[in-house]
């Protein structure tokens, strides 16, 4: 008889659908082929002028009709494409998903194109002012602009398109958001609230303003030429992350429900862990204790020991600070074993997809388990001598992987880790 509950008596969470869009392409197949070939999706920005900017590269998704339509339409489209692929793979009906929706979406404001357009409606009335723009809205509201400012809008559209149930949850835990969306889904299944959930991380928010904001915090790489060499996690000359776009989606189900409907199971979400940092708004506690706490919490939740992790899908942003802190955290938790666990960063190729990163990287982690191929960390030409990781340098590697740890760390003290495996922990 199949056992449907895990080591703590909770419903086992199976993954039955995976969807990915990134600057490398649309869909799992294209993405996985590019990622394992060590190809970079990072390129010179063409979406907006880059004169006067220190950073002129990004991993934008430029191949969609919505790519120049603004952050909200693009984030929605990316989410919809990833969801569509995941639901199609799960075999569930495309317009009647019938479970909860958790979506990590970027916190976006009215974009400049819209602001300029709104100001233009007031040119006859006097000099530029918010009072005149408000007066213009009183005369003639702009529902399309309004929608782009509503944080609940994308979730409503996705819920409507795919027929999810209940009040969808839109969330942000900065660069850990995608992982949090998955964690919320896992928890809902474990509570028995939903037999299946759709968890999505999406981000199509690269714009002049968002880039400048990160740039002003000195977070971005300025090694613009050649663009594909800029993201170099764990390298000595790393100088910041590269902003990027994309979406990842997972369909997760209780094992019982997946088996009952004869679904093909792609892997298991074994554990989730988190720990908040109270040190600083953008910097991590120097002793990495919150990140350490998040990794340990994820292992404990999964019911696994450090010896049972075969591969680590690192956060690996390529900022001087993150990679150093992440190594401190991993080497503390895994001790002497850390150098023997392959640990690579997808961000060397797809850049930092911000709100989507945790979801996309969880999707890649599951593909790693399925295919037995470890994606490389590219641009690893100058290893940081203080970071003694096996980063799967530059070229993919074949290996049997039963269990993966995927970590996400973000501004605002956000630390979330996921453990995924080929088999449930009984």
């Amino acid at each position, binding site marked *: 008889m199949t056992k449907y509950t895990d080591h703590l008596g909770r419903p086992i969470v199976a993954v039955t659908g995976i969807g990915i869009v990134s600057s490398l392409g649309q869909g799992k197949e294209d993405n996985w082929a590019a990622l394992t070939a060590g190809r970079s999706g990072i390129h010179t920005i063409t979406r907006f002028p880059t004169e006067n900017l220190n950073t002129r590269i990004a991993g934008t998704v430029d191949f969609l009709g919505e790519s120049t339509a603004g952050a909200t339409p693009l984030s929605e489209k990316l989410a919809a494409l990833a969801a569509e692929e995941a639901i199609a793979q799960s075999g569930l009906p495309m317009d009647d998903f019938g479970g909860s929706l958790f979506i990590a979406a970027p916190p976006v404001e009215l974009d400049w194109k819209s602001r300029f357009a709104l100001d233009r409606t007031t040119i006859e009335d006097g000099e530029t002012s918010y009072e005149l723009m408000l007066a213009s809205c009183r005369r003639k509201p702009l529902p399309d602009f309004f929608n782009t400012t509503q944080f609940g809008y994308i979730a409503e559209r996705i819920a409507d398109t795919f027929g999810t149930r209940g009040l969808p949850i839109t969330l942000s835990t900065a660069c850990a958001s995608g992982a949090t969306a998955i964690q919320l889904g896992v928890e809902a299944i474990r509570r028995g609230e939903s037999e299946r959930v759709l968890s999505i991380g999406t981000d199509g928010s690269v714009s002049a303003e968002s880039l400048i904001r990160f740039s002003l915090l000195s977070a971005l790489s300025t090694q613009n030429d050649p663009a594909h060499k800029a993201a170099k996690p764990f390298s000595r000359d790393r100088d910041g992350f590269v902003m990027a776009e994309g979406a990842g989606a997972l369909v997760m189900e209780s094992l019982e429900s997946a088996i009952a409907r004869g679904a093909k199971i792609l892997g298991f979400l074994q554990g989730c862990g988190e720990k908040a940092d109270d040190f600083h708004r953008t910097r991590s506690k120097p002793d990495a204790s919150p990140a350490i706490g998040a990794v340990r919490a994820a292992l404990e939740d999964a019911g696994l020991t450090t010896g049972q992790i075969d591969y680590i899908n690192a956060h690996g942003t390529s900022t001087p600070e993150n990679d150093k802190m992440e190594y401190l955290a991993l080497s503390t938790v895994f001790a002497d074993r850390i150098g023997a666990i392959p640990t690579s960063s997808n961000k060397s190729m797809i850049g930092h997809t911000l709100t989507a990163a945790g979801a996309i990287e969880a999707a890649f982690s599951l593909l790693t388990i399925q295919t037995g191929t470890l994606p490389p960390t590219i641009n690893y030409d100058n290893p940081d001598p203080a970071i003694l990781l096996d980063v799967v340098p530059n070229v993919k590697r074949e290996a049997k992987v039963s269990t993966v740890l995927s970590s996400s760390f973000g501004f605002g003290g*956000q630390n979330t880790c996921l453990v995924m495996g080929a088999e449930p922990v009984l």
Partner: protein
Amino acid sequence: MQNNKVLITGIGIVSSLGEGLDAHWNALVENSEPKLDATRFAPYTVHPLGEVDWNLQIPKRSDQRQMETWQRLGTYAAGLALQNAGIKENEALCATMDMVVAAGGGERDLAVDTLILAEGRTSNDRGVMLNQKLSTELRPTLFLAQLSNLLAGNISIVHKVTGSSRTFMGEEASGISAIETAAARIRSGQSTHMLVGGSYNTEHFDMLLGHELGGYLKSDGWAPLWQRQGSAGGGLVTGSGGVFLVLESADHAAKRGAKAYAEIESITSGQIRRGRDDLSKTVRDMIETAANGDEAPFIVSGASGAHAPTAAEKAALDALPGAAVRGVTGLTGHLREAQFPLSVALAAIAVSKGEAFGPLGEGEMPRDKPVSAAIATTIGVTRGEGVARLTRV
């Protein structure tokens, strides 16, 4: 799976009515005149924040400077809630406390925006001008002071709440989901004690624009909540405020001898398609479920004043002839992300006192008999519906 009782053991509120439980209860019982500012954002009226001594909950000036007003409001209210629950500065309890924050964002630099828009009227190359101005004019840390998840980040830094930190977004619905999820985690044993709430600062042109792009603001002065149909504009009168709750499992509260205001017995949430489904029927069904057979429920309504959803909620409430309804946003203004936390907080105070506060507006029925349960509602201006049932402990 466990089935823990979920108790509210701490409440922190700051709004135009003042701060703390007594200030709010007294204003409700006396049905005070709302505190209004009709001039600063004319023709819009807002319920402005009174004087707040931020130092009381955010001791470091350097921390205060890193936050825009909505973040300060939330961090302040979170401190009040922790203090009220007797958890503040209890390192062990804060380090294991889980947090869900309902957050908006925004509060842009209006001077920079206006400068760029003005230049944009004559610029030959708007994109290049935008890059140049944003790069030189934006304050680097403003980004963090606006960023949604940084309210939670600031609460971690200032109050050392570090068990976990999640931020929900999506206007009123984020406040509903935040409390619903927090309660579900405690009920199931996924957490033992949680800090949950949100904040909203309306005293900012950019925040008002967020509503008015859709034409939702009332533009001809304040009017009683239930009597705004047909007035100029969209009916919404907004307020500034922050509301946080401490939720605990009954076991956890008992072990540390904490007093509870109320039990959260149930939360019902949903998101119908407003253009297609019947909102009034939906709200009525949700309230009937929450009333649990009580034909004379006490209902703290978070109705926003926005014409369509308020009319729908009013129709649902009118269909319950025995109900004693209190529309609280006539006094506080609509607090968006913090609205559901506010409705729940005020209902919890009534339940803990065992009595109703009197009618706040025309058509609201008096309630003299003791209150042992209360219902709290929040119906989003454009989406999201939530109803909570609270009972006396």
